[in-house]
């Protein structure tokens, strides 16, 4: 059985020292190890950004796609081989900026996969422009006078899109993050783990310290019911999106991949591709 070690490779991440993404990588590797998955049965699809490099840093099948499109690629992978554990990941710009449409649709489509967003409220790789999660008033390269757009709340939009597993982590707490990712992978359906993953180079506002001061832990609310969608909505609004832990979980819905008409338990990529002569003739006859 594989352990966390098997998910490590020999590549030294090219993230800046202190970047929050290191912790995300570690948590993902731990989660995969804890679940006793084999590296060859895991596919990690990522977008473009500092965060997007993660697919190259875990020993597993990795696909570093184009900016904002990790989810469509990941869904294609899952369609072709539903035996795989499919992880999609990338940054806040990648996922909630250019990739926003795909995210909303992936959430409602509910394929069985896990999406990890490294949310640093900035565009890191392109050197510090504001992102869709940058707060109103935030100063970045592209908002020298302060951001005049309102930030997207990843948790709110995920709930509104009908997500079935929603969690939020923080790079400072790898243990919690590992658990949340693990839960997402175990969940049969689409899961989002949004991670506060500070960009130490370009975001001088939303630092580790800042998050530590602002974040509340959902575990601190013993009455909080993660199966109650309205409660989740309310809690997210109440905490201004700054809560970590499992936000919502609906395990009553079947994932897309099991609802497909003509669903066969064997994955598509394992099928014999030859069309039987009998069927060929039958289909052809329909045109006569």
């Amino acid at each position, binding site marked *: 059985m594989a352990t966390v070690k098997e998910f490590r490779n020999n590549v030294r991440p090219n993230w800046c020292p202190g970047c929050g993404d290191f912790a995300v990588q570690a948590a993902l590797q731990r989660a995969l190890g804890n679940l006793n998955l084999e590296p060859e049965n895991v596919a990690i699809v990522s977008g473009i950004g500092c965060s997007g490099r993660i697919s*190259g840093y875990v020993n597993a099948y990795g696909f570093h796609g184009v900016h904002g499109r990790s989810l469509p690629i990941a869904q294609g992978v899952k369609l072709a081989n539903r035996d795989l554990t499919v992880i999609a990941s990338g940054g806040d710009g990648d996922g909630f900026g250019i990739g926003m449409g795909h995210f909303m649709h992936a959430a409602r489509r509910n394929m069985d996969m896990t999406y990890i967003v490294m949310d640093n409220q900035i565009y890191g790789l392109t050197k510090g422009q504001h992102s869709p999660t940058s707060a109103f008033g935030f100063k970045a390269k592209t908002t020298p006078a302060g951001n005049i757009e309102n930030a997207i709340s990843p948790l709110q939009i995920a709930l509104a899109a009908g997500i079935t597993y929603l969690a939020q982590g923080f790079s400072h707490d790898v243990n919690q993050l590992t658990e949340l990712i693990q839960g997402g992978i175990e969940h049969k359906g689409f899961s989002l783990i949004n991670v506060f993953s500070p960009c130490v180079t370009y975001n001088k506002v939303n630092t580790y310290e800042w998050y530590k001061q602002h974040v509340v832990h959902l575990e601190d609310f013993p009455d909080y019911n993660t199966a109650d969608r309205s409660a989740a909505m309310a809690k997210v609004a109440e905490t201004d999106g700054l809560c970590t832990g499992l936000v919502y979980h609906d395990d009553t819905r079947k994932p897309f991949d099991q609802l497909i008409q003509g669903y066969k338990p064997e994955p598509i990529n394992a099928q014999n591709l030859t069309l039987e002569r009998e069927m060929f003739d039958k289909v052809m006859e329909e045109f006569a």
Partner: protein
Amino acid sequence: MLQELSWKVGGQQGEGIDSTGKTFATSLNRMGYYIYSYRHFSSRIKGGHTNDRVRISTSQKGASADFLDILLAFDQETIDFNGHELRSGGIVIGDAKFSPVLPADIAQGVRLFSIPFTKLAEQSGAAIMKNMVALGATARVMGLEPTFCAPVLQSMFGRKSQKIVDQNLGAVQAGYDAMSAEGGDFPEFQLSPPVPDKHLLMIGNDAIGFGALAAGARVMPAYPITPASDVMEYLIKKLPLVGGVVLQTEDEIAALNMTIGAAYAGARALTATSGPGLSLMMEALGLAGMTETPVVIVDSQRGGPSTGLPTKHEQSDMFAVLFGNHGEIPKVVLAPSTPEECFYATIDAFNYAEQYQCPVILITDLALSLASQSVKPFDYDAVTIDRGRLATAEELAQTEQGQMFKRYERTQNGISPRSFPGQKGGIHHVTGVEHSEIGRPDEIAGNHTAMMDKRLGKLRNIELPNSVTYTGEANPDVLLVGVGSSAGPIGEAVARLNQEGLRIGHAHVKVLSPFPVKTLQSYLAKAKQVIVAESNGTGQLLQLMRLSGLMHAEMSSFLKYDGTPFLPNEIAAQVKGSMLAWQR
């Protein structure tokens, strides 16, 4: 007796014009006639003129006829719009309900019959059966039995209720009788009996769908768009039968990226689109090229630019397909010209995609995608599946613990072994960034050059089989060059001209990339004059020939871009005209 006859039915969209044409064409196809049926329609759901032009022939034709013999009209607009297409001596049969009249610009000797389609239909049970009445009238004119469409009606409505079938047949009979009552026979509209030959009637898009099924396609993410949607709509009925899936995505960007994901993970996957969707796919197309992922993209061309003329014919996306993505990738672009070729080209497309590990685009045009044509039954034994260079179990087993698989190994022919997620020993990285043999980003100058050469080299100096078909004179005075659905009208014009004693050749390009330079060169070298006929405003095929170094002192474009396909006599006239001009 006629060897062919040209018939058209017209009326308002939503009135059942489509199904009238379809019933008519299918019935005659089953009798053994060859059909070519082309619909005129517009981008709205109900209302607006539509028509279906059906050519019935004793031999295979790939174009609409130059003239109409019979026009069935459900409104005056139909006569006004289409009357000029009637040959002299042709006939119009109109619904008495709108008191049809012939317009001034009608050919000599055209006769008008006013038959109470609607009234007779009502008497037969329901006004919507006016189409059947009209078919009955047609049958009478053409000397067909009034039951000629019974088998088709039986398969259409039989499962619903026998009563409907009978009512429809009654309506056909009523039309037949009403036409009889007009008195006289119509010997000039009698068709020779068909050669008893079985053929299928299908549109190019059906053939592509069927081809994909036969080729083992299993995943099709796509977004609806005219005139490509049929491929998706066909496969959504078929793929579930073989354990596959069609997924309607949120947009075309998702469609191609999802196709890439599925192909990467080992499925044969395709998507289909038209101009606007194609434009949106450019980034993902580059990704497929860079990551050497074998995807198949069907691009069915319509009138452009932009939203353009969504329901009209054009061939103006060839350059976009060939050159639209930023950066340079190898790609195969297949351009079949008949539904039959669509079927086999689709199978080739999947094989080439996996053999060359690159995107394959199957480009069609609206006439090819949507015209209904009689085709020979397909050959089961001609369907082969070649998945290309897959990593063997032994190779995978050789990968050492902690090492990555060389998915992008630099081999002699540039083609590297593929492994799929799920395979032990096959782990590698994939990225749209320039990368090393194991797929890791690698920006070193020498690596980029080597990898560019590896990828581009896969298709360099290669000519795929049957990239050009040639008919007509071997050393022609005029060589016609075309692509796509124009094979029909050009072929017919060339045959006619050669029969008239002119020396004309016809080279039809079936592969746009890798472009068959050598073969075309050999044809060009033998021709005195070259006319490149295409349905666009800038002469893309001719430009492509020039770009590839193909030159000829007397080479010109014949362009048509009014939204309708070439007719054989338009081609013939152009050839004659330019022969004159040239001889002068």
